């Protein structure tokens, strides 16, 4: 999906908020994908949303303006694969 650029992952306390985030971000035209929470992150809810870090500020704005409650946003190192 995101051709090697830095990947950000937003985690949530509950699936409800993850699905709200998915809805509002897709409506706002972002390319996102719902993924299982990576092992290196500990999170309360099993799913997370991944997006390109260059969109981070805009994603935050959209989530805030829709009062989506998030746990936190993680910056993932891209390990060569």
């Amino acid at each position, binding site marked *: 999906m995101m051709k090697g650029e830095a990947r950000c992952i937003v985690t949530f306390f*509950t699936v*409800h*908020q993850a*699905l709200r985030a998915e*809805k509002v971000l897709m409506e706002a035209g972002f390319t996102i994908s719902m993924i*299982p929470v990576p092992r290196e992150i*500990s999170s309360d809810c*099993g*799913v997370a949303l991944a997006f390109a870090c260059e969109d981070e500020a805009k994603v935050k704005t959209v989530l805030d303006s829709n009062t989506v409650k998030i746990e936190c946003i993680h910056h993932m190192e891209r390990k060569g694969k």
Partner: protein
Amino acid sequence: MIYFDNAATSWPKPPEVIAAMTDFMERAGANPGRSGHRMSLEAGRIVFNAREKVAELFKIKDSSRVIFTVNGTYGINLGIKGLLRERDHVVVTSMEHNSVMRPLRHLEATKRIRLTVVQCNRDGQLDLKDMKKALEKKAALVIATHASNVTGGIMPVKEIGRLVREHDAVFMVDACQSAGSLPIDVEEMGIDLLAFTGHKGMLGPQGVGGLYIREGIELEPLVQGGTGSNSEQEVQPDFLPDKYESGTLNTVAIAGLGAGVEYLLKAGIGKVREKEKALIRKLIQGMKRIEGIEVYGPEDAENRIAICSFNLKGKDAGHVGYLLDREFDIMCRVGLQCAPAAHRTIGTYPQGTIRFSLGYFNHEEEIGAALDALGKIREMV
């Protein structure tokens, strides 16, 4: 065949409801919110979409405040038992269903809550002055049915909501009979807790209901357990909807409910209301022309949903119901309809009434046929 028992459960359901349930079972039948795989996510999306639709129907801004339960009764119990503490004062109308009265009578015996029942008139209508008087004694909770399951009479919920707000109590509305048939706006009506069932006017299947909980209202969950979230902890999560949704949801029913509400939103509640009002008006007008029928509840169709309770002079209600079913192929409900308080109010306790309850899918010809049947039963010895 004529189905006039929509207040017990609506029938038929829109084909979209059945299709959504089949689709869930065939395509996404996993456990919502439990795993990260795509079927679980898809099941989660189905639940999420249904929650959003329900929120839209009741003008709720934050859909996470909509809790799905196994039925309307559980939603009512969650509101009552989750909120009330020892010796709290509760005010209700005399038209409430047993799903409200029984938990309250139970708490009266076990937690010594004090209960004030505001008497309605013989038509089942509330005088706001009486409600105001009952609120002079500080109350923790006020409960009113939005529409009576016995008479169909609509309560002045918005006006009660304003009074309750002035008296700083929590306002719970039992919308089991009205949701999907009447417009509901939790903000405009000042509703703090809204209990609903999915299988009546909301056109979903049996096995799902719910409760809206206004932000700031703290309820003790009735049940604790797995939620798919906070799994490393052995204490119940504190966020909604998970806090009140322990254990696997009835996802197939929720899929159907979501489709039912979507159907209503597309049709428009205003249009649903107009159709149901026209049907019940025609039924009541026709009944008035039959000698020996007593119709209970408010006279004007404007003040009732599509429910009509009545008796035929000199005839046992149970027998009339039997004849309607066996001889005329008309299905309805007779007796006390789980609401002895309401029947005491309108003077039909303990013999009960015959109740015709119409729905969006009934039509005018069925009204004519039912009126003919009643005319014939009246002539029978």
